[in-house]
């Protein structure tokens, strides 16, 4: 079986109408960096494909204290924006230039681990996913949108149209551990967003990528630093808690055992770096 129809809708309503008509038989493609390898290798055999390049979903706009990112905004455009340091850092460590030119922010929410570095950063920023269909729209926190390995909370007639990101207000860091420095799948990626008051952590979001069925929060690590100062014993406890919070897997990149060890080592490094940076700021 080969592709019999390739649709290129010129607007979001046109795209939603196509999804409404063809539902689960329509393969939706944004950048194509996930779908095309599967199609080229003959694993995925879609009959109907819809490209979103012309659907007008590629804008990035600041609205108040939030960033509205169109689902097909490329990772290169994320690298070029100046509103979110964390998202820029994550984009810089994701894929190669050619992948970033094609890959999209919306598509990254669907990329199976060890991919999904952008989704990890978005999770640390408490992003929300806007989902539309011909029936209406709904907004889902990213943490609830991703339901399992390669599965999301999306009905057959629904389309992810944008991602709403509260802008980072406190110190942030993104750290990716791979086998190579650049263009590498993650052993683990770590995104942290803190709120500090006179050196005490008042709120923490620690997101871990490539160590679970989808990017995960590390709730016990967050609890370990919330209400405390970023000092060595607290950081050590949080790093150990993050390793316990992770749910890693074996693949060709790394073993589950190694991934869990790297979570502890690199959460410690990330928090130590944040502590040094924020202490400098206080002084």
């Amino acid at each position: 079986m080969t592709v019999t129809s390739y649709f290129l809708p010129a607007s979001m309503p046109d795209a939603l109408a196509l999804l409404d008509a063809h539902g689960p038989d329509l393969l939706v493609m944004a950048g194509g960096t996930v779908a095309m390898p599967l199609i080229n290798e003959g694993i995925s055999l879609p009959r109907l494909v819809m490209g979103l390049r012309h659907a007008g979903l590629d804008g990035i706009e600041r609205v108040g204290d939030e960033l509205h990112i169109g689902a097909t905004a490329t990772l290169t455009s994320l690298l070029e924006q100046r509103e979110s340091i964390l998202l820029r850092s994550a984009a810089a460590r994701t894929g190669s230039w050619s992948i970033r030119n094609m890959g999209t922010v919306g598509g990254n929410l669907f990329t199976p681990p060890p991919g999904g570095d952008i989704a990890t950063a978005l999770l640390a920023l408490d992003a929300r996913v806007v989902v539309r269909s011909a029936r209406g729209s709904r907004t889902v926190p990213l943490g609830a949108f991703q339901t399992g390995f390669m599965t999301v909370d999306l009905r057959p007639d629904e389309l992810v149209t944008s991602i709403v990101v509260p802008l980072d207000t406190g110190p942030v860091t993104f750290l990716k551990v791979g086998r190579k420095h650049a263009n590498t799948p993650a052993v683990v990626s770590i995104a942290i967003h803190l709120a500090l008051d006179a050196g005490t952590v008042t709120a923490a979001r620690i997101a871990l990528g490539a160590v679970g069925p989808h990017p995960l929060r590390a709730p016990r690590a967050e609890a370990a630093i919330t209400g405390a100062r970023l000092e060595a014993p607290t950081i050590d406890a949080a790093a150990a808690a993050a390793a316990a919070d992770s749910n890693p897997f074996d693949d060709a990149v790394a073993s589950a055992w190694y991934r869990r060890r790297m979570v502890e080592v690199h959460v410690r490094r990330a928090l130590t770096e944040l502590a040094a940076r924020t202490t400098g700021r206080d002084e």
Partner: protein
Amino acid sequence: MNVSGSHRFAAPRASVFAAICDPATLMAVIPGCEAVQQTGPAAYEGRIALRLPGAVGSYRTSVRLVDVAAPHRAGMEGDVVGAMGSIRGRADFVLRDAGDATELTWRGDAVIQGPLARLDSRFAERLAESLIDQGLRALAARLELATAPLATAPLATGRATQAITEGPE
């Protein structure tokens, strides 16, 4: 493909067992399941529509309950057939009392044929375990709902997660 897992249900063993053997309940909890019908005393057929990243399609499913020892253990033999290939295999599950709760452990063994077989087997195993885990979580939510007082019970749903807000953006 060898897969396994476990799940804890806050419900009595007999009701967990009955739910697993009930096609209407199965239809509500299997991700993407569109239809299940009973075709024999312990045989069911269904259709599952899966929209995965980079791959879409419908799969015809047939399942047969075998070696049933209610409410302790049962096996399911069956196949899933679609454009991407077929999966044929068997899953066995065992239920144990754990205080007021029920502990379910399961183990599956399947052969993948067709284009799907080109996937890294670990990749296919993670996907299968994830789908089954989502089904069991949704089943647990339904069973807890059935045993919860009506006044505090949330709206029944077969979906693993809930949208937080609905309406125009």
